[in-house]
Every structure is written in structure tokens, then in C-alpha cells.
């Protein structure tokens, strides 16, 4: 099991080279397997009902079919990323791209430690870091519309709004404090499309989080200051009954791109290949 001891073992140099090459091949395979281990699920085209829209806006926004990671990105996956791209390590990241609690639960630059098990979702990552990871694996972050469309599915039907079981689980999660050590990603009950953990594990970054046009101050949100937001005076909350969506909107609008929190992770998305859409 200990490959490292093989490397230092006194062997003929040619054999050592071959062994080294074999280990590299193995490691590349493992790293690739790690990056590809996340199954991507096709979310069929649908429409997203924005929580907030101006009076002029259509009630729903069409969303094209896309691919979404089955689960959030894990600590092990993020270790592989910062190992390969040093500028995203905790000790090297620019303060512009991540605040001081970036990867704060980790023990070291490349060591998540016991508080952040390999299979648990990576948290305390900034929007910049999440995006950089997604691009590194050849993907992107989902848009708000895509994420919310996916998250609107129930356990047993595409529209989860009246899925009592889902709502019960969701509200139970919202009421629970964030555990000190997060459980593994990908173990949640799959929804109608086969996606897991959209609800009940961590909050997730979206590409256009900074399109949420509330100030984060409740007294200002009912009628946005036209001085601060051009045109935003027209944007008001549409449906305040969807409490969970409201929470997500409030979170997004309160975040800056460099912020990190112990309950905020991400998952990746990808466009469907042109031919596979239908």
C-alpha cells in the first residue's frame, strides 16, 4: 500500500524509473477518476419562477436543459485542485479573492484534517475559488435560474412545491444548526432527477449570485433605494410563501464574492453537448 517507500527503495535505476512512471500513471488515473467521479445529471429544460422580479417581467424564466453535478464538491476534490493550482491554497490566496476564513476548517494548505472529511462537501470557499475550481475541471457554476429549477424538483415528481416529504426535510434542515463536521456529500435522498443534497447539506454558490438585488438590510428591501440601485426600485419580492427560496435569495444578496462561510459550498454544472439536448 505504501507507494512512497517503493520510491526510496534501492532498486536498479531503470526499474525505479519504470516504477515511477507506473505510479504517475496510477496517480493520473486516480486524479482523473476523482475529478470524474461526480456523476452529472441532466436537468430537462423547464422554467424558473423568480422570487423577485419587476412588474414588467414575465412570471417565469425559461431555462435550457443542462448538466448538474449529482452532489456538491468534496474536500478531497478541492485538495486535488489546490494541490495543482497553488494560488488557491489558503496560505497563498489573494485577499481580493477570499476572505480570512477561506478553508478555515482545514488543518493545513493541503490537509483538510478531521474536521473536514474527504467525502464531505468543501465549505468556506469564496465565489472566486468555487468558480476557479469549476473552470479547472472543465465545468462552470450553475446560474441562479438553473440551480433553482433543479432545486424545485420533488422526491417523486418534477415539481416539488407540494411534496410534503421534501418540504418536511427541508424545513427540518433549516431549523438545525450547522454540524461541526458535515456529513458526506452524495448520501442524501435523490430527487426526481437523481440529484442529491440540493437541500439539507450546505448552501451553494451560483454564478450570478450578485444579481440578487436586495441590500441585505430588511428595512431597505421593501423599496430599494433608487440612488443605490438603478432600476432596482421595480424589483420586488414575488412570492414570500416559499420560505426556503427566500432564505437563499437573502443569503445570495448578503454575500460578497470573497466571502466564505462554514455552511456554503458549491457544485458544478455544464452545458449539454449540442446533440444530446433532445
Amino acid at each position, binding site marked *: 500500500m505504501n507507494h512512497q517507500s517503493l520510491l526510496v527503495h534501492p532498486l536498479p535505476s531503470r526499474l525505479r524509473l519504470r516504477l515511477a512512471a507506473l505510479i504517475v500513471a496510477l496517480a493520473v488515473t*486516480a*486524479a482523473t477518476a476523482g475529478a470524474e467521479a461526480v456523476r452529472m445529471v441532466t436537468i430537462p429544460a423547464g422554467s424558473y419562477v423568480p422570487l423577485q422580479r419587476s412588474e414588467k*417581467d414575465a412570471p417565469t424564466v425559461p431555462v435550457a436543459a443542462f448538466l448538474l453535478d449529482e452532489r456538491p464538491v468534496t474536500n478531497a476534490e478541492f485538495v486535488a485542485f489546490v494541490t495543482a493550482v497553488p494560488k488557491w491554497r489558503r496560505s497563498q490566496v489573494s485577499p481580493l479573492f477570499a476572505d480570512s476564513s477561506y478553508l478555515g476548517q482545514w488543518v493545513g494548505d493541503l490537509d483538510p484534517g478531521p474536521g473536514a472529511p474527504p467525502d464531505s462537501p468543501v465549505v468556506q470557499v469564496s465565489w472566486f475559488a468555487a468558480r476557479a475550481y469549476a473552470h479547472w475541471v472543465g465545468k462552470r457554476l450553475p446560474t441562479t435560474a438553473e440551480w433553482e429549477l433543479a432545486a424545485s424538483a420533488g422526491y417523486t415528481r418534477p415539481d416539488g412545491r407540494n411534496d410534503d416529504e421534501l418540504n418536511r426535510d427541508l424545513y427540518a434542515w433549516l431549523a438545525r444548526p450547522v454540524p461541526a463536521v458535515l456529513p458526506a456529500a452524495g448520501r442524501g435522498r435523490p430527487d426526481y432527477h437523481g440529484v442529491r443534497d440540493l437541500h439539507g447539506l450546505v448552501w451553494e454558490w451560483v454564478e450570478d449570485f450578485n444579481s440578487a438585488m436586495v441590500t441585505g438590510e430588511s428595512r431597505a428591501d421593501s423599496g430599494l433605494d433608487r440612488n443605490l440601485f438603478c432600476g432596482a426600485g421595480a424589483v420586488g419580492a414575488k412570492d414570500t410563501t416559499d420560505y426556503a427560496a427566500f432564505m437563499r435569495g437573502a443569503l445570495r444578496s448578503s454575500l460578497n464574492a470573497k466571502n466564505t462561510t462554514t455552511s456554503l459550498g458549491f457544485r458544478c454544472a455544464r452545458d449539454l453537448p449540442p446533440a444530446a439536448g433532445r
Partner: protein
Amino acid sequence: MKPHLLTLALLLSAIAARGGDAPACCHAEQAPAAFTKNSIYQLDATFTDDSGHAFTLGELRGRPVVINLFFASCGYACPLLVTNMQAIRGQLPPAVRDRAVFVLVSFDVARDTPAALARYRAQRQLDGQWKLLHGDDAAVRELAALLGVKYKQEADGAFSHSNILTILNPEGEIVHQRIGLQGGLEAAAAALVTAAH
């Protein structure tokens, strides 16, 4: 099994550090003439200016900068933002005025093509010290995130957006932001003068 994979990945990096090639996915993270840790010029996105030339923000290095996000068809705040930038320029001592760059980056990646921005330049009679930039959605989204600007396209094609004017020093570090439309032009001009030295 997972920690085992992790060990292998770490091992790979150790081997790569000793001279092997990085996997194709992971383009080398070089640091050319390193920008400072707080420089927004660390953004490596490429924009296109209104004469159709590729432009990276790092090319502004060495000069004091006023930067604003806007969209050309905006009928409410954006004309005022441009007027405000002109007012700031008018308050600068000549030595600073001649070095300062006034940058407008459009949210409207679909309609504000370089040609549309060139028309806007002509309409507003903006001279060579103004830089009008078009970028793809990801580039503009990232720049907006760095400047703390929120924006959203409405169904009628217009954009709701924060009104934030930013002053950058010659290293590309944010030294001042003017939030909102009222007042504060003197403070912005003063910040630009300080930044220029």
C-alpha cells in the same frame, strides 16, 4: 479508498514538482511581474475596446483609474454616472488629469458590442483618455464581483445595477468607492489625486 486516492494525488503533485508536466487541465499559474495581492489586475480576463482591440485591465497599470460599470442604452443612472466622471475629471489638477484613465465596462454583453460602444463614445464626445470595454458574461460578472457591483437584466432588456464608482491606484488597488448618485465627487477626485502620487 478515498484517502488512498488522495495520497496518490499528493504523490503526483510531489512528482510533478520535481519536473514532471502538469496535467493538461491545469494551465500553469505563472505570475508575470506580479501584481500586488490587492490588485484587481490579477483578473486575467480579456476585454475588447471600442476600436476592436483586445484589452486586459492590467494594461492600465501605472495610471490612476476611475472605473464604472454601465450599459449604453441606460436612460436613468448611467448618463449621470458618465457626467459625474466628467465632473471628477474637471476637478483634477492638469498633471493628474493627463494621466488618469476613465474606464466604462458594459453589463450589456449582447448589445454593447465594440461598434455600439464606439457610437456611444461619439455621442458623448469622450476623448482618448476614456476606455470603453466590452467583455463576455463571465468576465463582466467577475469584474462586477470584485468591485462589489450587483446587476441583473430585466425582461425588457434594461439592467438593474448598483451605482458604484471606483478609484484605482496605479497598482490597480481599490482606494475609493463612491456609492450612490448624490454628492461625493470632491472626495472621489481627491482620492484620485492621492492615488496618482
